[in-house]
């Protein structure tokens, strides 16, 4: 494949969940979501989030970030570091952790934009470290047969998906 896949391991997902949980608690937010720039949700935490379609949220957030990034370039900015959407009750704070990962915080009147912004800064720095460790682990992963569960995929496996 001519491009690099993103991978997530159990240990790092535990660290990410801990960071998101702390962020949500410290900022009194309703929820926190980590999304990759292609629109896949990586992790989430929060209360009463069942009514939210998190798959659609991830895809639309990535689309939103992609389009505002393109707008930034049109006006000569490299990117917008954060986006805020203010609603009557609930608001969103969207920021870039690194060039691949988006952090979204959902908050209401129990919190404030200033508090969310402050806590996001610390959480983003912690998340950068976790993703650096994922990259290191991925590059150290042994190559060759047996290294990945996908090396053994057969035509029958693929056919069974559409049976």
């Amino acid at each position: 494949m001519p491009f690099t896949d993103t991978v997530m391991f159990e240990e790092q997902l535990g660290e990410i969940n801990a960071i998101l949980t702390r962020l949500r608690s410290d900022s009194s937010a309703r929820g926190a979501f980590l999304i990759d720039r292609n629109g896949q949700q990586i992790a989430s935490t929060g209360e009463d989030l069942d009514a939210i379609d998190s798959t659609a949220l991830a895809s639309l957030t990535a689309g939103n970030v992609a389009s505002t990034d393109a707008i930034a370039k049109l006006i000569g900015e490299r990117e917008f570091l954060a986006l805020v959407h203010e609603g009557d009750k609930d608001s969103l704070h969207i920021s870039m952790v690194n060039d691949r990962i988006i952090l979204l915080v959902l908050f209401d009147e129990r919190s404030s934009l200033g508090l969310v912004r402050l806590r996001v800064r610390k959480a983003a720095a912690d998340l950068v470290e976790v993703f650096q460790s994922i990259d290191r682990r991925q590059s150290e992963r042994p190559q060759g047969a047996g290294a990945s569960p996908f090396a053994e995929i057969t035509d029958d496996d693929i056919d069974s998906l559409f049976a």
Partner: protein
Amino acid sequence: MTFINYASREINCKIVYYGPGLCGKTTNLQWIYDKVNPNAKGKLISLATETERTLFFDFLPLELGTIRGFKTRFHLYTVPGQVFYDASRKLILKGADGVIFVADSQLARMDANVESLRNLSDNLKLQALDLRTIPYVLQLNKRDMPDAVPVDRMLKRLRVRNEDYFEAVAPKGIGVFETLKAAARQVLVGLKKAS
């Protein structure tokens, strides 16, 4: 860019439907949405204008089942086909694992097909992707139209690398799943090769 989650044992892949305006990209997604088991799909999101032309993208998450213990999810996207939405098309192609080109079989749309295919090739290059190597399937849609161009003539103009092609009538579902399956297969075989 495939997302492999070893923690939750999931693989997420992105397939993009490309093609000229009104060729039937959204209709492909609509058919898949209507026919797939409700447990296997999410909501179909359409960012469209008031006249139902795609403005930014359509999005359909699809869970196909388990492969080697990993839940296999495909995120299907369409691009807006109209020429002036090129900036949006570039964004949606980012991170694509595979592309389906939906060609309109009507004689009057042949030039639009060729232009859109060229546009696809150019936009893939911007992502350092190559139409000749990326998982790619050609769908010849609207085969039921009275002025449909013969298949061999369409292939002569639109086929880029001996890729799989499927004749389709998307509103009736003809060729829709066959096309998706061929693209999904190529993406998964790509994962195998990359292992």
